[in-house]
């Protein structure tokens, strides 16, 4: 095959549950691989927070909506010869299929590379897939496909329960589920059909409890096939692989089973004709006799599904083995053979081999239930995790514990137990609970602690006894640590099993620091071993390390100038891919400046943990113990013989890295740029207040209170509404707006509970414009690339607000004040590095005296850094890193102050994953809920907004029905919006109070009962039946979220995947956009062109 000269790569769009940073990693690798091969890459993605959309990665970058129309226009303009459909997750794959089906690829003679349309269809269409497998003699579970509820019910009756419903062409198991009862079945089947883009579901015999095993397979155009690795899900079938604890390689399979499934994988990839990578999932009978009396021969297996593309699992497999699947897949797609691609790790061998692991890898998902305590925490066939962590060690026990330490789940070690498990009692089999949930691991440990037998637990959960007995060994050692005095032997054994100093301290009654001292005294320190793809058979070129307690250390300290970048750990709500973007750029900037970068991170999905991103990679938990161990391993001695640690950058890895600043400072570690001191000033409310007062910079008035009486007094003084929040919690947690005394009493109680003894903050809620800036300070100058203005007024978390660059409504004086305050804060703090400042701008009388308040200062990189860097073309992280190395802004050629606006408008819009999270309320508030973001950029606001809404899936159709349910408080303000909707010809539906108001305006609206028991059609019916196409629903007050009025409305809208606006500001923007003059079109251009 002739190598194509120009190739279009489709990215995966915003981060949502089921599709996270792994596709940035895959896309970035692929673009680099194309460049190596001399192929021009054209990249399109709507997600600005990605490395792949950097201009240094792909040759031509489009940040545009991932729609057929937009991509067609890109193809028209760029005329690529080929299209790589397999790197952008399910989004990219589906879009490629749509482009092919729309005839676009044919028209412009674009060839699908690697995986043909035919192959995609055969793999993704559940029916075609089954037929193909039957042809090659590979077993699939008994099943049938249905395209409507009636068909589904017929099949269900025929097959009998329990059944599993699996929608076609979705990802993360969206819309699927296991049905034990008929009601469940009808509900799941209906949901599944709605979720599938082709209205197709597979209804299948339930294999719950079978082992779930995955293989990563590669195949080249000459039909050479290899398997990169296999993975075993500790949670058996019935829990989505993305929500399972996964080990690599498999632990409980005999060679016979391993090879049987390996051969099947290869047979399948051949039959599909994939050229590149592919993931095959199997269910393997755990025992000859399986559930429900159906006796099968041992070694029975079924093929569950195939993903004919790179996936979350392939990213995990790449990191677990060191084999760069996406890179190799890209090269295969343009015609290379496996034996023509060098193995970058060994430098000696080629990509045509199978990695041999000499360690165990454990992945644990990171779920968002720390945020959504009200959500349904059971896990099943539909994925709920936002991210994951991976850990490597030489035994399962140790790797598991390291993975737990990497989760950063409120400091939950393996010792954690839900307080209720201690307080309450329940039947042995369900207390502590061990059903599939985000806390099952801890439930299992707690059950073992209480003496439940491993075999018994295994039988109940379907988890292989091998895993449970490993957990039991942890409990046995835990008990020894509790009862015996700490000896060198016991401590060494505990460390080899992965116990953290902190857990050992808790059990043996020492402080963590004392345990650390003991370790040093007894010479129990970790060594670092290499991930080399070949189990040490060849010498490795790539410095990719993990720690373990053995004898030989392979990681000699890096010499010369060097610095450690602390990464951001698992992707979670509030700390997304943006921080990986920043970490990667920091490392690159270090390298550019001749400083060797040492990355520490625990997230397998990311670019930062790609072994060739940095000079050296430590795949380790981001906790104090591990980071200190790593820094100490990197200790060298200067000429005078004094020990020297590499300085640590803590500004780029989000809150994860920031939280390590204090402990590292106390341990005497040096920092690059401002470290612990600046953070302390910004986070200590008292100090920060004094600081701003001294500078004469206003802050929303308020106070810290310890009881209701003080709270009332403060609220009286500053006036309602007030914002109530516990101190010392992150991400706007448990933050509420109180409009009156009643609200206040309720929220204060809740906040005091969450605050755990710390005072509760009561601030004036300022309904102004929210504005934020990112800035680089070198201590003498402050560079502010631009001002970002939120579309929603303050009160919606900055991470959930839409925002626009440059600001559209600020007066010159306001912008000037923002610039001035930012500079003053940075300089007075003596800050060196990157900071983010959030402001509220209040409407004022006097244009010369703008009312600008500082909301908070984050002395670190923020969520908006990739966005503002991309739209302004000012590489903030790069500049900040060099500042931290001592190169002043002046030296780098940057002016001080606010940079002039670029001739473009960019709108950032949040993206939520609410359809995956049953029971979670979707309204916008001060607590962040979104998982990702998109960007729309154009020459003007209208175009940018339209594209952002489009990319975020928030576009209202130009005609249709709108359901209105507006809180009394917001009614006056909603008048212009309602008039606009009516004027544009939308059919209005409204709940009673709102309908009355609409009718008072002389407009008509159908009245729909809000309460579900008050007759049909009610609010949920009109949404489900498709009468309405969008919902505008503002909330009437705080309280326990699901009890709020309108919860059902919002959930119904989410389940139907229709836009639901809970802020009048967003609604107004969306309605304006939908009703704009249709002749005003948006443009499609490479990003840099907009900036010109």
């Amino acid at each position, binding site marked *: 095959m002739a190598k194509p000269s120009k190739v279009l790569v489709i990215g995966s769009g915003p981060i949502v549950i089921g599709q996270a940073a792994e596709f940035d990693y895959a896309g970035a690798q692929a673009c680099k691989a194309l460049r190596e091969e001399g192929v021009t890459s054209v990249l399109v993605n709507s997600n600005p927070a990605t490395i792949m959309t950097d201009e240094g990665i792909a040759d031509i970058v489009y940040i545009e909506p991932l729609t057929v129309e937009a991509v067609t226009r890109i193809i028209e303009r760029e005329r690529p010869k080929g299209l790589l459909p397999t790197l952008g997750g399910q989004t990219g794959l589906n879009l490629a299929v749509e482009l092919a089906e729309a005839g676009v690829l044919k028209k412009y003679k674009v060839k699908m590379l690697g995986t043909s349309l035919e192959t995609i269809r055969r793999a993704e269409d559940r029916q075609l897939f089954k037929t193909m497998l039957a042809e090659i003699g590979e077993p699939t579970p008994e099943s049938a496909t249905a395209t409507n509820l009636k068909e589904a019910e017929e099949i269900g009756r025929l097959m009998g329960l329990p059944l599993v419903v699996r929608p076609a062409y979705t990802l993360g198991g969206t819309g699927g589920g296991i049905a034990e009862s008929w009601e469940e079945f009808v509900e799941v089947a209906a949901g599944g059909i709605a979720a599938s883009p082709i209205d197709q579901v597979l209804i299948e015999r339930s294999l719950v409890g079978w082992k779930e095993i995955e293989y990563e397979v590669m195949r080249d155009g000459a039909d050479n096939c290899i398997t990169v690795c296999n993975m075993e899900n500790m949670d058996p079938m019935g829990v989505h692989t993305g929500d399972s604890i996964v080990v690599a390689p498999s632990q409980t399979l005999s060679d016979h089973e391993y090879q049987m499934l390996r051969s099947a994988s290869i047979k399948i990839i051949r039959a599909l004709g994939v050229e590149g990578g592919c993931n095959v999932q199997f269910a393997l009978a755990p025992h000859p006799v399986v559930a429900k009396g159906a006796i099968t021969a041992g070694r029975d297996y079924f093929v569950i599904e195939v993903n004919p593309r790179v996936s979350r699992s392939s990213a995990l497999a790449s990191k677990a083995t060191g084999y760069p699947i996406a890179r190799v897949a890209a090269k295969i797609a343009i015609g290379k053979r496996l034996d023509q691609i060098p193995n970058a790790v060994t430098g000696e061998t080629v990509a045509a081999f199978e990695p*041999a692991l*000499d360690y165990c890898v454990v992945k644990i998902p990171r779920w968002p239930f720390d945020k959504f305590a009200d959500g349904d925490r059971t896990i099943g066939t539909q994925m709920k995790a936002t991210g994951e962590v991976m850990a490597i060690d030489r035994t399962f026990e140790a790797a598991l514990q390291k993975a737990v330490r990497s989760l950063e789940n409120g400091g939950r070690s393996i010792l954690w137990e839900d307080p209720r498990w201690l307080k309450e009692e329940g039947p042995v089999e369900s207390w502590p609970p061990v059903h599939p949930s985000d806390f099952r691991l801890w439930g299992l440990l707690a059950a073992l602690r209480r003496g439940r037998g491993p075999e018994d637990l295994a039988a109940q959960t379907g988890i292989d006894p091998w895993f449970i007995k490993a957990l039991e060994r942890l409990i046995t050692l835990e008990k020894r640590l509790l009862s015996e005095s700490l000896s060198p032997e016991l401590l060494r054994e505990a460390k080899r099993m992965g116990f953290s100093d902190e857990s050992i301290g808790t059990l043996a009654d020492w402080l963590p620091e004392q345990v650390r001292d003991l370790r040093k005294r007894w010479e129990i320190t970790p060594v670092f071993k290499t991930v080399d793809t070949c189990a040490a058979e060849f010498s490795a070129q790539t410095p990719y390390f993990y720690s373990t307690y053995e004898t030989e250390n392979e990681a000699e300290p890096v010499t010369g100038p060097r610095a450690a970048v602390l990464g951001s750990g698992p992707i979670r709500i509030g700390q997304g891919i943006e921080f990986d973007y920043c970490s990667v750029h920091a490392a690159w900037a270090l390298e550019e400046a001749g400083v060797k970068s040492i990355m520490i991170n625990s997230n397998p999905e990311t670019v930062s943990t790609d072994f060739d991103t940095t000079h050296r990679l430590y795949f380790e938990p981001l906790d104090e113990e591990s980071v200190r161990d790593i820094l100490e391993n990197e200790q060298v001695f200067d000429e005078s013989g004094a020990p020297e640690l590499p300085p640590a950058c803590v500004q780029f890895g989000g809150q994860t890295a920031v939280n390590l600043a204090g402990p590292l400072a106390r341990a005497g570690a040096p920092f690059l740029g401002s470290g612990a001191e600046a953070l302390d000033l910004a986070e200590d409310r008292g100090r920060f207040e004094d600081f701003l007062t001294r500078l004469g910079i206003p802050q929303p008035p308020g106070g810290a209170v310890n009881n209701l009486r003080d709270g009332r007094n403060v609220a009286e003084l500053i006036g309602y509404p007030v914002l109530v929040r516990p101190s010392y919690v992150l991400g706007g947690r448990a933050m509420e707006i109180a409009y009156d005394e009643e609200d206040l009493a309720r929220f204060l109680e809740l906040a005091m509970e969450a605050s755990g003894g710390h005072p509760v903050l009561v601030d004036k809620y300022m309904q102004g414009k929210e504005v934020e800036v990112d800035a680089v300070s070198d201590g003498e100058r402050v560079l502010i690339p631009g001002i970002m203005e939120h579309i929603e007024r303050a009160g919606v978390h900055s991470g959930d607000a839409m925002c626009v660059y440059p600001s559209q409504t600020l007066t010159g004086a306001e912008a000037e004040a923002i610039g001035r305050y930012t500079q003053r804060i940075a300089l007075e703090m003596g800050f060196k590095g990157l900071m983010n400042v959030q402001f509220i701008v209040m409407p004022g009388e006097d244009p010369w005296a703008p009312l600008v308040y500082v909301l908070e200062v984050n002395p670190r990189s923020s969520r908006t850094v990739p966005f503002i860097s991309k739209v302004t073309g000012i590489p903030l992280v790069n500049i900040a890193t060099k500042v931290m190395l001592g190169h002043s802004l002046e030296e780098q050629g940057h002016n001080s102050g606010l940079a002039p606006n670029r001739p473009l408008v960019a709108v950032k819009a949040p993206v939520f994953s609410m359809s995956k999270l049953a029971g979670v309320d979707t309204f916008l508030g001060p607590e962040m809920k979104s998982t990702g973001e998109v960007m729309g950029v154009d020459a003007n606001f209208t175009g940018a907004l339209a594209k952002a809404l489009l990319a975020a899936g928030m576009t209202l159709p130009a005609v249709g029905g709108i359901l209105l349910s507006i809180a009394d408080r917001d009614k006056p303000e909603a008048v212009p919006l309602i008039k606009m909707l009516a004027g544009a010809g939308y059919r209005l539906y409204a709940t009673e109070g709102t309908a009355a108001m609409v009718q008072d305006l002389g407009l008509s609206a159908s009245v729909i009962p809000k309460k579900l028991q008050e007759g049909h059609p009610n609010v949920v019916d009109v949404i489900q039946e498709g009468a309405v196409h969008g919902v505008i629903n503002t909330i009437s007050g705080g309280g326990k979220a699901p009890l709020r009025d309108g919860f059902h409305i919002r959930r119904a809208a989410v389940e139907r995947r229709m836009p639901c606006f809970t802020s009048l500001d967003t609604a107004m923007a969306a309605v304006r956009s939908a009703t704009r003059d249709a002749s005003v079109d948006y443009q499609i251009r490479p990003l840099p062109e907009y900036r010109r």
Partner: protein
Amino acid sequence: MADKALLVLEDGSSYEGEAFGAAVESYGEVVFNTGMTGYQEVLTDPSYAGQIVMPTYPMVGNYGINPEDFESEKVQVRGFVVRQHSTTPSHWQAGQTLHEFLEAQRIPGISEVDTRAITRKLRSQGTMMGILTREGSPEEALERLKGLPRYGEVDLVKQVSTERAYEWTEEEPGLKTGPPYRITVLDLGLKRNILRILAGKGCRVLVVPAWVSAEAVMAAEPDGVLLSPGPGDPATLEYVIRTARGLLGRVPIMGICMGHQILAHALGGSTYKLKFGHRGGNHPVRDVETDRVHITAQNHGYAVDPDSLPSDASVSHVSLNDGAVEGMRHAGLPIVSIQYHSEAAPGPRDNGYMFDRFLEMVSDMHGA
């Protein structure tokens, strides 16, 4: 607490760990194997006779020992070195733990040692002799080791080969796919899976001792002969080479591993010892004829010197890792000769096609 155990290598380096398996002392050539599964097949593979085997995969014994995965009737390795052995295996077929199995078979093991460090040593310094003991100091153990014979100095094939000829009758499930060709297998230390595969393809399989003569082999009128894998240095096996030479041209021959090396010698070629060998299930090999790459199972410490081959013999398979000869063919003689293990067990099953190539030759000769 487990007893302490010591592994001492001939260069004097010693590794202290925990003893498991039998409480006996043992010595042998220390080699590493990079397979992640298949320890039972490795332990019972006669080609590992005379060797102390160390899996690079750290957790061994997870699925216990089952009645099916025996490649011969007993444990063949001299000792087993692991990072961790599972005392709580889990598998529906598992009957014994690894420890129980080794103990019953009188083979010692050592665990909790830094197997990666040892692997790196062997990789950079080459395979070494070693001693595994629970007694005395490292210095004493090293002293004892020095008095013991080296690997390659002993005829291991004689020790592992069957005493008398037998027909392979073990019933294999599945279809017998081909005609009932009579295949005689010269047992140099064979793995049962070779027999299972041949039988599965419909062949009638006769196994004969390593020391039978060519005439004795031919007396049974075989349609094909298979020279099996086996332990030790092929160059020392003059009597087997002689047999092979006597068979060349008279009957299609398949040589696997040691069998392949014997064929090379029979053709006038030679073998040499590799620095640390190829042992594992992930070795890429190029089939020169088809230009395709196959992942193979390998276990060899010696290799055929390509320059030593006569002009009518040529290299048919090459290792992508280090260029070693992994197979050869002959312009005039019906031989299939491969260094790797097309019978898998353990390892990938991608190379069963080599048996088909052999049986095609058999069929051609048969028809002719």
